[in-house]
């Protein structure tokens, strides 16, 4: 299976401000080969590929396509070189048919000969084994059908190099199997394929070689037949880094939230949480680890009353009484009115947790505006609270009335967490609380969470960095594709152990076996 190199990247470096997204990365893909690009979240896989698709331009380094040095400055340049990238977020016009989307933006005769287009699409379908009705409208399609449209779109444009960004993240096991068959056929056809993933089973089953990135740096490339799950995990997570995060002993540990048999599906009917059983204790920090999109967001939103469930129950036990209450079926407001104090930091800080155009005071009111007199809002206490937060957490803002949209990411996060903590919650849930923050700010946040833990609050910390999870939390629950693959003691668990739990569970093994 050797051929000339379809793609060769030589010492590519890309920085965003002070953040290094890719540092001196080199890799190559041959014609008729599938290369897996493996790495944890934030390891720079997507950034690297976006330099091939013309979205970013490297700071330094060289790109060779079919042996020739090229300069890719726009998506169009990328098209012209025969590179097609299938992003995680599909770029399709909902109201159009598959065929219309596929032909959109292509040059040609004024009148679109739909018959010819459809014929060509059908030809591609037959050749590679896609199943697609070219006349079906996108809004009637499942995610996997939409993905098919995106793939055919690149093939239709004559792409010889395909890059797929986590293609299986949105697919059911059956759909994944079909996709893999198709990708293998493309390989036989001489196409060069890169798939970005962090699912080890898929890597082992599908690809010829694996290149691993870790924190923006290139770790190495191995032949798949020489790799094992363990060796790949080690490459992916690296050596354990000792972090200087304090971890007070848990105090007064009692069940606070009991999640029982909870399952839920997304709007396409795909299960995102499958039979979750979990107890969140007071006085502890419970870490939740998992590949992005394994159901962390949904789990937190269910507890907060923002997401509906298919089945199961979520019970809340207040600290000073024995009367436990069911939270499912209550609106976020009702949950609060019942005296259940949940503090929730949504992933999308500005889109949901905060109002971008308002100042800090206005954002403090999002939680508290209902208090005060009957008709008027009380601005004094939120203003005081803002001033306190600025002082205590060191928020850098010209003025507490400056729209929070204009603050830097770290300061926005401080405002949000500060507000949530100020509500003196009994349960504090945070999702990716330190994403995009510098080290100092991150430590401030860890400190805040520890303070809450010492007060007897039940803290849930959804995180990405395994080192931090291991250093900060008392227990870590690992989610994999919506299922709990284990709950471990953070004091004794190892990084490899977590890495394996994140990427593997029983069902995926079956998928692999069936296909081999």
């Amino acid at each position: 299976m050797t051929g000339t190199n379809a793609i060769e990247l030589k010492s590519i470096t890309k920085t965003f401000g002070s953040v290094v997204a890719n540092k001196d990365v080199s890799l190559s893909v041959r014609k008729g080969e599938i290369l897996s690009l493996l790495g944890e979240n934030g390891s720079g896989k997507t950034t690297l590929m976006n330099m091939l698709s013309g979205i970013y331009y490297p700071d330094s380094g060289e790109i060779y396509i079919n042996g020739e040095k090229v300069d890719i400055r726009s998506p169009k340049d990328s098209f012209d070189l025969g590179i097609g990238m299938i992003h995680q977020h599909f770029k399709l016009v909902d109201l159009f048919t598959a065929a219309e989307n596929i032909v959109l933006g292509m040059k040609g005769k004024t009148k679109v000969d739909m018959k010819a287009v459809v014929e060509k699409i059908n030809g591609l379908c037959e050749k590679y084994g896609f199943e697609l009705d070219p006349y079906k409208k996108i809004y009637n399609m499942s995610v996997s059908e939409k993905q098919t449209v995106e793939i055919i779109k690149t093939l239709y444009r004559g792409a010889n190099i395909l890059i797929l960004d986590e293609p299986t993240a949105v697919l059911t096991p059956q759909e994944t199997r079909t996709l893999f068959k198709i990708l293998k056929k493309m390989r036989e056809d001489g196409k060069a394929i890169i798939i970005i993933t962090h699912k080890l089973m898929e890597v082992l089953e599908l690809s010829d070689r694996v290149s691993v990135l870790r924190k923006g740096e290139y770790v190495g490339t191995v032949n798949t037949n020489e790799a094992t799950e363990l060796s790949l995990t080690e490459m992916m997570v690296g050596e354990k880094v000792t972090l200087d995060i304090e971890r007070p002993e848990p105090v007064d540990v009692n069940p606070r939230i009991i999640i029982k048999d909870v399952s839920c599906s997304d709007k396409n009917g795909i299960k995102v949480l499958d039979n979750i059983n979990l107890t969140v204790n007071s006085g502890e920090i419970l870490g939740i680890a998992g590949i992005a999109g394994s159901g962390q967001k949904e789990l937190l939103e269910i507890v907060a009353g923002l997401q509906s469930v298919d089945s199961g129950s979520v019970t809340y036990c207040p600290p000073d009484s024995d009367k436990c209450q069911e939270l499912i079926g209550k609106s976020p407001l009702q949950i609060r009115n019942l005296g259940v104090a949940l503090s929730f930091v949504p992933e999308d800080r500005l889109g949901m947790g905060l109002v971008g155009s308002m100042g800090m005071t206005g954002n403090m009111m999002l939680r508290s505006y209902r208090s005060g007199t009957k008709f008027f809002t009380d601005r004094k206490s939120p203003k005081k609270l803002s001033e306190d937060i600025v002082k205590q957490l060191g928020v850098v803002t010209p003025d507490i009335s400056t729209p929070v949209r204009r603050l830097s990411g770290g300061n926005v996060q401080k405002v949000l967490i500060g507000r949530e903590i100020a509500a003196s919650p009994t349960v504090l849930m945070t999702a990716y609380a330190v994403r995009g923050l510098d080290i100092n700010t991150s430590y401030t946040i860890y400190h805040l969470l520890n303070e809450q833990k010492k007060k007897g609050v039940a803290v849930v910390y959804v995180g990405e960095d395994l080192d931090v999870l291991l250093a900060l939390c008392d227990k870590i629950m690992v989610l994999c594709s919506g299922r709990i693959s284990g709950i471990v003691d953070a004091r004794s668990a190892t990084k490899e152990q977590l890495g394996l739990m994140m990427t593997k569970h029983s069902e995926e093994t079956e998928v692999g076996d069936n296909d081999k």
Partner: protein
Amino acid sequence: MTNNSVHSKSSHLKEPLIRVARREGTSKLAAFFIKLLAIVLSCVVCLGVIYILTGSTPDKVASAMGGELFGFGTRQMNNIMNAYSSSPLEGFFRGLLSSKPFWRTIRDAMIMLCVAIALTPAFKMRFWNTGGEGQILMGGLATATVMIFCADKLSPALLIIVMLLASIAAGLVWGLIPAIFKAKWNTNETLFTLMMNYIAIQLVLFFNIIWDTTGGAGYIGMINKETHAGWFPTDIAGGFLGTENYIIHLLTVIVLTVLVYIYLGYTKHGYEISVVGESENTARYAGISIKRVIIRTMCISGAICGLAGFLLVAGSTHTIAKDTSDNRGFTAIIVAWLSKFNPFMMIFYSFLIVFLSNGSKEIATRCGLNEAASDVLTGIVLFFIIASDFFINYRLVFRHKTAKEEK
């Protein structure tokens, strides 16, 4: 992180010569000066247009505007000013306060402000209420109906109160209908409210024929012409404010402006409106019922528009006709939007618009143009102000040399 990526991305792609970038945090003062500059520029253009068309010089234009808008140069004002020649300043103010043109300007500006104030809560919620025209007309129609049928049954004070309530109710209903459809079925509110205008116009035309007093011309004519029942008195405060003052309009609308300002800025309802306008997701996160906020806010918006209709019919035209509202529902959209919900700016723009349209009507007559020129001039000024927004919210980035060095 996201900020950085946008920046790096754009600087690394093939950069066009001039690129547009969003600008954050332009100071209010700077914004105001940009606006002012736009207005000055547009006035220069208008004066140029007038000069080219008629040969009238700016001083002639200014005197025309002064006369029409404030009564400068009228015989009445000259008399008063002469009487106070020992104290010119007092004479000036007395002359101004007793001048009919001055009060008419106030009246028109106040009604414009009233409508703009009415639309503001809806806009703040990102609900495009293009139905102000219809809501005003329905308010006016309700007022006229009460004036016609209840004049001899109710005491003067009670009559006014019933008229007021009827106008508010009518405007409210006209605002409520599209709101319900928006809240429940997400029906496009811009188009819905737009259509409601013409249904209101047809209703007004219908009743104009039913209650025709002219013998077939299709006009209601002055209602209660003899008794003045339901008319606002215009000689309140007597000689000091002249025999035709509109102090009721002034007080009502200013009080209303303050109330709406407080409502939006300091009440729970107002807070909810801001959150819904900013992001429905955030509103849901905070447990705000979006449907309820939409319906409640449109009731308020429609009700105040109805009140504007009341001010028009009871206090100004004393009749209801198809053109009673005179496009105020539309013009006020521009006023409300340009003011960015700031009440002081809204007062400023209301006066500006009234100055423009009333003043340029006079200019047109004096300079031998026809009346329609006023719309043209108003249009030109509006274009400039609308365009000036761009320079407040965006900046132009010229291609840097660094982009070339990279090659």
